[in-house]
């Protein structure tokens, strides 16, 4: 069950010819798949394409009506391999994942797929997570397209172009027997726009037909000598077929302009930003008219030599806008123009920065510098010199640097992973720092304040594997962390199996929060929920024991900080050989709240006795040292100024977003912090007897208090 429900968006998938679709880019792609008669879809969730997976998971009814098979793949490798259904059969298939991380994982399958080639259209939709807000290493999917000779589409970032790219992509794949990769950037995935919908199509050839009439052809299997033939076939047949299709169908676009002695060549995805940059230089308008000619590569691989030479032939200079590095396209462009003996000078990296996101100011600066270098009269004088950043040099704005704090992502309010790292910090205080191999997932927030735990991260599910070298006699052991998502993705074999087999003595901490939480709360094998269409409730502990681990500790409530701490200490000190595996399980609070909050409200409304827990701080007891915060970082545990004239520093305070997870109390207790915290159990609809007892207690306590307070001077402030 994913974090977000797409019940409403699913209805948009039913739109047909004559309707207008309005919505998010990634949902438009989902709709485009159905319009293209796709036969099966798979993938692995991750920003920015999680919503594609989530919406399809919520759209089981429509999918079964159309006869489309949808699978939440175990990993990107599994998704990539799924496309092999299109090798022998004329069935369109699509898979999706976050790139480049997912493409890395899938590249074995993709290389084999691309070698043998496909019969049915095979589309790989990659969410290119590059630039601002990216959560992964900065690399390009382009390299994968080139190495495996998979065609790469990078459409202009509006819904109509993106939807068209899906449809074109399938056809291009079929015309050239080659898988096609469709690259969509983060902002395009989340862009709200509109396009004219078409009717959904059932796949003309179904998976059932394929199963019932199997076909095989040894020439399509990657094994010599067929594999040698595949390479020739790629060059001699598939590539030319692709080039011909791209040219005939005009997948790339030329926008003419009157200043035609120069031009800009750009990736499709860069189009809107380039246009906005040109507007800033009075060279274009919001309706898409431009004075500088543009060659827009909606297909960035393969390059179409004829189109490029035609565009450049009569120009003295062109600017190549290619985001990311290395500059594969720019290098190829140099070769193409040199071979065709075209003199147009190529600008690219130089005016444009070598690396980093190409924002509008960056592009505007580069286009300006390009035209200035060419001494081009098109640029009005007032725009020749840059004038931005003037406002930013203001002293008052500079002063913000000291005031505005960085706000990196962190654990949510009540997150069950927080107490795990609080316990690790307590262990660190006792036994000293350890080498901690971190992993991908929410738990990676441990590397940030206040916990500052974790040395490296080597990839999803690779935490334990990345500590594998540290299997030598030493005074300390390594600790590696991995989430349940990473565990099922590959960690069971690469981490646990590897450690068991190699008799690794380190500690492996598996953070089990019942979902793939970082990607949006999708279910996985060990999820506790009943899922209508998936098989869940397969415990991680059983899996690790099954693979040969013997020292296994299952902790069913991560909020028990003392137990967490003591278990970790035992794991770090026990004499037992082999990996020490701790499985720390508690439900992701974000998902738990989403699940239980409506039920709670309903029960209260129905008059049932319900207890809501939350924490608070007695601010007269708190001394404002904030040690509790250094072991928490919870958004609901904050600080406030106090009006007590004898206190200089702000005191701790718990706000009303507290979900009563218990971490504050447990940490205060385990770390012997201070007695300021209290837990308040608010009882909705209390029973009669309970109320009577409470009244009785209150009156007796009241009498005692009165007696005591009569004996001392009472002040308004106490």
């Amino acid at each position: 069950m994913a974090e977000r429900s797409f019940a409403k968006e699913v209805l948009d998938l039913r739109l047909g010819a004559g309707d207008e679709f309005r919505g998010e880019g990634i949902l438009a792609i989902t709709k485009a798949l159905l319009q293209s008669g796709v036969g099966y879809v798979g993938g692995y969730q991750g920003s920015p394409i999680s919503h594609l997976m989530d919406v399809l998971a919520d759209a089981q009814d429509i999918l079964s009506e159309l006869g489309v098979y949808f699978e939440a793949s175990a990993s990107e490798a599994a998704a990539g391999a799924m496309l092999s259904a299109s090798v022998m059969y004329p069935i369109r298939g699509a898979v999706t994942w976050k790139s480049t991380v997912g493409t890395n994982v899938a590249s074995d399958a993709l290389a084999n797929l691309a070698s043998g080639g496909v019969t049915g259209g095979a589309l790989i939709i990659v969410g290119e997570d590059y630039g601002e807000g990216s959560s992964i290493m900065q690399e390009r999917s382009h390299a994968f397209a080139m190495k495996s000779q998979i065609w790469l589409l990078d459409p202009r970032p509006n819904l109509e172009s993106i939807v068209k790219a899906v449809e074109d992509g399938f056809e291009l794949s079929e015309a050239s027997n080659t898988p096609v990769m469709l690259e969509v950037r983060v902002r395009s995935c989340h862009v709200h726009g509109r396009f004219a919908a078409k009717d959904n199509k059932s796949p003309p050839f179904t998976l059932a037909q394929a199963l019932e009439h199997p076909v095989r052809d040894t020439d399509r299997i990657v094994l010599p000598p067929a594999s040698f033939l595949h390479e020739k076939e790629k060059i001699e047949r598939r590539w030319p077929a692709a080039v011909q299709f791209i040219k005939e169908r005009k997948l790339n676009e030329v926008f003419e302009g009157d200043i035609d002695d120069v031009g800009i060549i750009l990736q499709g995805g860069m189009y809107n930003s380039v246009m906005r940059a040109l507007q800033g230089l009075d060279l274009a308008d919001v309706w898409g008219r431009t004075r500088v000619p543009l060659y827009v590569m909606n297909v960035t691989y393969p390059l179409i030599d004829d189109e490029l030479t035609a565009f450049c032939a009569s120009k003295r200079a062109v600017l190549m806008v290619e985001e990311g590095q290395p500059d594969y396209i720019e290098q190829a462009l140099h070769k193409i123009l040199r071979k065709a003996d075209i003199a147009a000078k190529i600008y690219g990296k130089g005016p444009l920065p070598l690396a980093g996101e190409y924002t509008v100011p960056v592009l505007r600066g580069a286009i300006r510098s390009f035209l200035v270098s060419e001494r081009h009269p098109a640029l009005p004088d007032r725009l020749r010199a840059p004038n931005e950043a003037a406002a930013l040099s203001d002293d008052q704005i500079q002063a913000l640097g000291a005031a505005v704090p960085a706000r990196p992502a962190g654990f949510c309010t009540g997150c069950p992973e927080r107490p795990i790292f609080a316990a690790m910090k307590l262990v660190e205080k006792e036994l000293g720092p350890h080498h901690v191999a971190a992993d991908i997932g929410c738990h990676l927030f441990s590397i940030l304040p206040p916990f500052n735990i974790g040395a490296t991260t080597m990839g999803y599910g690779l935490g334990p594997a990345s500590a594998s070298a540290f299997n030598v006699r030493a005074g300390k052991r390594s600790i590696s962390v991995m989430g349940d998502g990473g565990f099922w993705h590959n960690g069971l074999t690469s981490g646990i199996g590897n450690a068991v087999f190699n008799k690794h003595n380190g500690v492996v901490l598996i953070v089990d929060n019942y979902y793939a939480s970082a990607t949006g709360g999708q279910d996985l094998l060990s999820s506790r929920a009943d899922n209508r269409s998936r098989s869940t409730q397969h415990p991680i502990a059983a899996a690790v024991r099954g693979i040969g681990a013997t020292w296994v500790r299952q902790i069913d409530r991560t909020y028990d900080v003392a137990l967490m701490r003591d278990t970790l200490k035992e794991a770090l000190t026990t004499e037992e050989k082999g990996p020490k595996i701790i499985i720390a399980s508690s439900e992701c609070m974000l998902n738990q709240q989403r699940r239980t909050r409506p039920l709670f409200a309903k029960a209260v409304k129905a008059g049932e006795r319900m207890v809501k827990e939350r924490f608070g701080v007695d601010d007269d007891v708190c001394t404002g040292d904030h040690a509790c915060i250094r072991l928490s970082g919870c958004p609901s545990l904050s600080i406030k100024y106090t009006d007590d004239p004898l206190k200089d520093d702000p005191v701790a305070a718990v706000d009303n977003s507290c979900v009563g997870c218990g971490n504050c109390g447990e940490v205060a207790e385990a770390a012997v912090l201070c007695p300021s915290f209290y837990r308040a159990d608010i009882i909705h609809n209390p029973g009669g007897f309970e109320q009577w007892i409470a009244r009785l207690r209150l009156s007796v306590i009241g009498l005692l208090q009165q007696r005591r307070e009569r004996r001392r001077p009472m002040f308004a402030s106490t």
Partner: protein
Amino acid sequence: MNMIAQVPQLDTVKPITIAVLAMGGQGGGVLVDWIVALAESQGWIAQSTSVPGVAQRTGATIYSIELIAARAGMPYPVLSLMPVPGEVDIVLGAELMEAGRAIQRGLVTPERTTLLASSHRSYAVREKQVPGNGIGAAAAVYQAAGAAAKRFIVFDMAAIADATGSAISAVMFGALAGSGALPFPRSAYEETIRAAGVGVEPSLRAFREGFDGAGEPGQTRSPPLAPNATPDKRFPELAPVGHPGYDALVQRARAIFPGELHGMLAAGLQRVVDYQDIGYGAEYLDLVASFESFGSLALTGAAAKYIAVAMAYDDVIRVADLKTRSTRVERIRREILAKPEQLVQLTEYMHPRAEEVVGVLPAALGRWLEARPRAIAAIDRIVNRGRRVRTDTLRWFLALSVIAGLRRFRRGMWRHAQEIEHRDAWLAAARAAAAIDPTLAVEILQARRLVKGYSDTHARGQSKFDKVMAAAIRLQGRPDAAQWVQRLCRAALADEDGTALDGALATIESFLR
């Protein structure tokens, strides 16, 4: 030049551009959806996008919206997918520092930008984790906004959201309508909220208050000034309360000390009397009076404050006393928004150690035990564990009351003896300094601020305090001694481990040698 092609007639119309800066859970996405739906309902074309990345959790997200009136016969417009510095018409900052961040990113410019921000603070971990006060200066944002924005509308939207049972997004939507920055009528905004159909009534209430908060549309006024960052300290009056013993102390204090210090003296006096008894109050006045003779108002003021802090040290008796006050339950019920018909049960998290037990023993016995680590360890084995006690039950209320009642024996206790010894050494040092350099004496008194917390935290604070005191005594006589002690205190409060303090001490060492 061979410009043969005809120069196209470029349209100079520009889209209205909006940037929203919000944190996870503030409803930024909802606000953006509303703005898009609003514009579309008015026949405009709207494009929105965001870069959530990992900020989907608790980090900051920037949303970008562009709106343009649809025009017959024209193709679909080409809109930007990111806010462009210098080209943003409206910036909505759902929290004060997020507004500051927008200014830092150049999104707010004097020619174009209306900046709407909520004045409330949601502190970042970096601000909260500092052992002292790490809160960023709100005034810096107000000043920068005054310089950078064409118009700056700021008020506490979180308070309105809380009061109306809605989210900050609804208040912001109201403020946006109230600002008149978009060419749409108020009714269209309200209709948008109704059409979205989620939490309609609370959202509309919040919307209305947000609308009013924005002031008159188009109204020009000088940019708002930062409210006082720290709320005023609540100084009680140095006046009789109808308790003969206390009133006599008041009489005495009024006679000795100048009026300027009466507020602080009242606060200090009430604290120590409440902490112990009238006699303790007399002792307090004696100690403060011993600084009066130096004739420095600042010095006596610092003495009035920090002697009270030192005398009212945190111990188990004090905690038990505070946890069993008659005013406490009502205060807590108010804080946690408990309704009258709901019951509230309270659980306290206590973790006594041998130190606490030995601390309440008679001083001689405590001193004797303290010299015997094995005995301490044995006691620790018995008492040292977390105890959760329900103070709303008679049993635990009585237990804590008994501990609070130990107050009358406090003067003879081991912990008290230690505190007094430590206190007197500190005051002696301050008096010695005062004779030569009253400003240094003030800083020495203020260093008391470093001692806070319980158990390990207290020990750490105490050790920092002792280091600063040692340095202060060595610095005595230098003209910049006071400044250095002040620097040391600031460094001591900057981090937990005392890294900054050790650095500052090393610097002092370099010139004292």
